[in-house]
């Protein structure tokens, strides 16, 4: 009797395993893409009970390294993959393929009490490189500028550095914070602060500035008139197939993009 029970138990276990495997997807990577992947996975699993999608953060570099090592099927990235990463993947027989899942604008934010309403890209650069030190020089209150930036390895920093600073070095006295949320809360609680974060993270604690006269919004990011915008990616090994293709395809569809918008990002459609 006991023997039979054990056999039944093992069979059920292996069946369960096989069943779970059917839609087993793991992804990791960028903390910017994380809310999209997470909310997307939850919604998709609700409508597809045979799918099990696990989502982790870690950062764009971590995600791509995990893809390279074959531990995830999807690497989330807030920047395009770098040539070094491509060659590292190729060396392991991995062929990274990009899928754009959302658009994102990088909002320049200041404290609510700041009277400055807009800046030019050149002014943003002068602030971050330390040439402009006081808000009075920009028509604002006489208050030293507290520069808040992201750690230099983040995808958000890279895009900001390229699009706003033209590759110039951020002054060493800038505060480097480790997440979008930390930037928003630091700027929201510091009257002289300026910072930047993905549009999805902006809340009522801070004031969003116009850049070159353009306010970041769905329309201005999509038509490219807002200068500080970027694409968010999911990378797979080769062309996505099976469960992974279904999930990414759904995320790119209208239903998936609805979730992208709910999370504060901008749809690709």
């Amino acid at each position, binding site marked *: 009797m006991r023997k039979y029970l054990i056999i039944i138990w093992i069979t059920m276990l292996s069946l369960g395993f096989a069943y779970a495997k059917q839609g087993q997807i793991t992804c990791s990577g960028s903390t910017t893409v994380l809310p999209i992947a997470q909310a997307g996975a939850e919604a998709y699993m609700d409508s597809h009970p045979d799918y099990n999608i696990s989502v982790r953060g870690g*950062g764009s*570099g971590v995600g*791509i390294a995990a893809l390279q090592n074959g531990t995830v099927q999807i690497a989330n990235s807030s920047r395009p993959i770098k040539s*070094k990463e491509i060659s590292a993947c190729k060396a392991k027989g991995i062929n990274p393929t990009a899928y754009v899942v959302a658009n994102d604008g990088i909002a320049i934010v200041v404290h609510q009490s700041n009277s400055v309403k807009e800046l030019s890209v050149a002014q943003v650069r002068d602030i971050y490189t330390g040439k402009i030190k006081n808000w009075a020089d920009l028509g604002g209150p006489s208050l030293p500028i507290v520069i808040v930036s992201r750690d*230099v390895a983040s995808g958000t920093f*890279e895009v900001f550095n390229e699009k706003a600073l033209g590759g110039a070095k951020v002054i*060493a006295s800038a505060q*480097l914070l480790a997440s979008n949320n930390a930037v928003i809360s*630091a700027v929201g609680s510091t*009257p002289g602060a300026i910072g930047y974060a993905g549009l999805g993270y902006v809340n009522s604690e801070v004031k969003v500035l116009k850049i070159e006269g353009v306010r970041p919004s769905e329309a201005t990011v999509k038509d490219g008139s807002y200068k500080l915008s970027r694409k968010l990616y999911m990378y797979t090994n080769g062309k996505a197939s099976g469960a992974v293709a279904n999930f990414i395809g759904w995320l790119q569809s209208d239903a998936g993009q609805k979730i992208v918008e709910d999370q504060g990002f901008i749809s690709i459609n």
Partner: protein
Amino acid sequence: MHAKERAFVAITHTAALFSLTAVFGIIYSIFREGIPLFDIVPLSEVLFGNDWYPTHAEAPQFGILNLFAGSLLVTLGALIIAIPLGLGSAIFISEIASPKLKEIAKPVLELLAAIPSVVYGLFGMVVLAPFVRELFDLSTGLNLFSSSIILGLMVLPIISSMSEDALANVAKQLREASLALGATSWETITKVVIPAARRGIVGSILQGFGRAIGETMVVLMVAGGSAQIPKSIFESIRPLTSTIAAEMGETVVGDLHYRSLFAIACLLFIITLITNLSAELIFFKRNKK
């Protein structure tokens, strides 16, 4: 019985061997990942360079002097706060408090050590930093001063608890002899008990130093993160540990930036190894006596 005993020995051996392997595995891997940096960037440039721009497109710079200064300054600040408070409470608990009060005070103090560092960090970020900013009318409260206070609070239980043990271990006869010779209890504490326990006290301070310089979460959250040598205690700093924590997640695995973070880890490892060894040596000498 014999077999049982042998099995027990085998199990404990395996456990000891396992932790030893883990330690050496970690050491090996951080050095293997970190050392190749110096094939490309000279060691002196890393150690004495002020500029930390590891991801700059044309000319990345890997100078960690400012980060190192940040680590040392915040650790020093923490010790300035924790040493007097820690020693004071150790002396109070060991020498002055009634046995009943002692029974309550010591566990409460040790409870401070049980609070996770992220909780300290959150407290520093949400409560202390805004308070410091308003109190001193600063542009930011995330600075050397705030992070030293929080880190000092974290190190305090280590110093007080270990010092208290050292004080309590001083032989009773010494105290009695001192008092019998007519010394006041203040004289007994400062001239007899503390000198007798000084090895333990110095050891506790070294342990506190090691804890403070290796702490990551608190400084990541409260120090502000500017890679500069601060001109005042109210400026932001960026210690070595928080640099690793903030940047590791996003780097390209295997590139120079990645290697430089491991090189920082190697440096941190060497610093803590030296402090732990000295603390260990001091204790060893005391026990041998």
